[in-house]
C-alpha cells in the first residue's frame, strides 16, 4: 500500500524555519518507520538527514517524534501506527541541527553530571564484584536505558526549564545509587538534590509513556526523591 510520509525538514543553510514535506512511499504493514525513511533517502531525496545505527532498538540513535509521540523509528511498525499518513519530526525541546538530527550535547552533559559509572574505592577483587540476585534486581529496570533522549525531550518540565537535569540522567543515577557494589550514592543524591535536580519532576508521566524500553521512569525518579528525603531524615 501507499503511505504518505510527512517529514519536518530543516536545512540551516537554506531554510529560515522548519517546514513539512510530503513523500509517497510503498509500505507493507510490517515495515518500520525507519524502513520508510530509508526508502525516501535512497529513492527520492538523498538530502534527508537522520541518525540511525543498529536499527534494532539498542543503540538509541533514531528517536524522533512519530505521529506526535517520541518513539524509535526502528521499533515502530506501519501497522502499529494505523492509517496511511505518518508524520515525522525531530525530538521536541532539543536544538535541531538538520532535518531529524538534534543537538544532543546538553543532554549528554547532564547524563555525565550524575557520575554514571561505578565508584568503588575498595580493594579490587581478583575476579568479579559479586552481588546477590536480589540486590541486582533492585535496579534492574534502570539498566535498560539506551540514552535515546525520548524521555527527556518529551518532558514538559524540561521544555519549560532546560536547566532541569531530566529523566534520562536521573534514571542513570538510579542505576548506580541502588547498586550495592557502588560507594558514591551519597554524592549522586547530593547532585540530584540541586534545585534543578529531581524536584523539577511534576510526575506528568510523559517520560514513562515515551520510553521505548518500557522503563518505569517516574517511579525511578520518585525513588531517588525519597532516598534524598530519607538521607536528610
Amino acid at each position, binding site marked *: 500500500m501507499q503511505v504518505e510520509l510527512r517529514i519536518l525538514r530543516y536545512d540551516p543553510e537554506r531554510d529560515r524555519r522548519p517546514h513539512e514535506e510530503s513523500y509517497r512511499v510503498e509500505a507493507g504493514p510490517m515495515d518500520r518507520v525507519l524502513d520508510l525513511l530509508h526508502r525516501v533517502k535512497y529513492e527520492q531525496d538523498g538530502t534527508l538527514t537522520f541518525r540511525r545505527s543498529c536499527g534494532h532498538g539498542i543503540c538509541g540513535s533514531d528517536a524522533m517524534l512519530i505521529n506526535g509521540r517520541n518513539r524509535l523509528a526502528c521499533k515502530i511498525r506501519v501497522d502499529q501506527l494505523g492509517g496511511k499518513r505518518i508524520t515525522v519530526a525531530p525530538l521536541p525541546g532539543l536544538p535541531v541541527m538538520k532535518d531529524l538530527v538534534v543537538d544532543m550535547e546538553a543532554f549528554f552533559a547532564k547524563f*555525565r*553530571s*550524575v*557520575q*554514571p559509572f561505578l*565508584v568503588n574505592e575498595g580493594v579490587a577483587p581478583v575476579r568479579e564484584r559479586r552481588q546477590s540476585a536480589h540486590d541486582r534486581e533492585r535496579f534492574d529496570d534502570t539498566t535498560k536505558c539506551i540514552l535515546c533522549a525520548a524521555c527527556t525531550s518529551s518532558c514538559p*518540565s524540561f521544555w*519549560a*526549564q532546560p536547566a532541569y537535569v531530566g529523566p534520562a540522567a536521573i534514571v542513570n543515577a538510579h542505576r548506580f545509587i541502588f547498586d550495592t557494589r557502588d560507594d*558514591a550514592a551519597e*554524592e549522586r543524591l*547530593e*547532585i540530584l*538534590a*540541586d*534545585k534543578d*535536580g529531581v*524536584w*523539577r519532576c*511534576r510526575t506528568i508521566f510523559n517520560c514513562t509513556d515515551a520510553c521505548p524500553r518500557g522503563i518505569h521512569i517516574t517511579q525511578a525518579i520518585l525513588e531517588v*526523591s525519597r532516598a*534524598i*528525603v530519607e538521607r*536528610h531524615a
Partner: protein
Amino acid sequence: MPTITRAGRARPQGSSFELAVWYLMRLTGLGLFVTALGHFLITHLLSDPSIQDVAWVSERWGSIAWRTVDWLMLTFVTFHAFMGMRVVVHDYTRGALKTVLTMALYLGALVIFALGTMVVATLPFPVA
C-alpha cells in the same frame, strides 16, 4: 569535600530548601485530604448550608478543638496553594520577573496566613 564532582562539574551547594518544600507539599497534601474534605463534608452534607451564618460559625468556634482544626486547614491550604503557584512561576518565568512574582507569592501567603490566624485567634467566644 572537593568542590568538583568526579564527573568534573561544580559540586552543587546542596540547598535543603527545595527538599523541604517538596516534602511539605506532600505532607500538606495529605493534611488537606483530611481537613479540606472534612470541612466540605460538614458544611455541605452534614449541615444545611442555608442555616450557616455568623452565629453558626461562632457556636462551632466555641470549641478550641474546632478552631485548631480550622487553623491547621488554613496552614495546609496556604502552604500548598502558594507553593503550588511557585512551581508554575518557576517553570514559566525567568530572571527579574521570576524573583518579583516569587516574592509577591511569599508576601501574599504571609498576609493571608496572618489575617486568617488573627480571625481564628480573636473571634470572641459565644457568651454562655
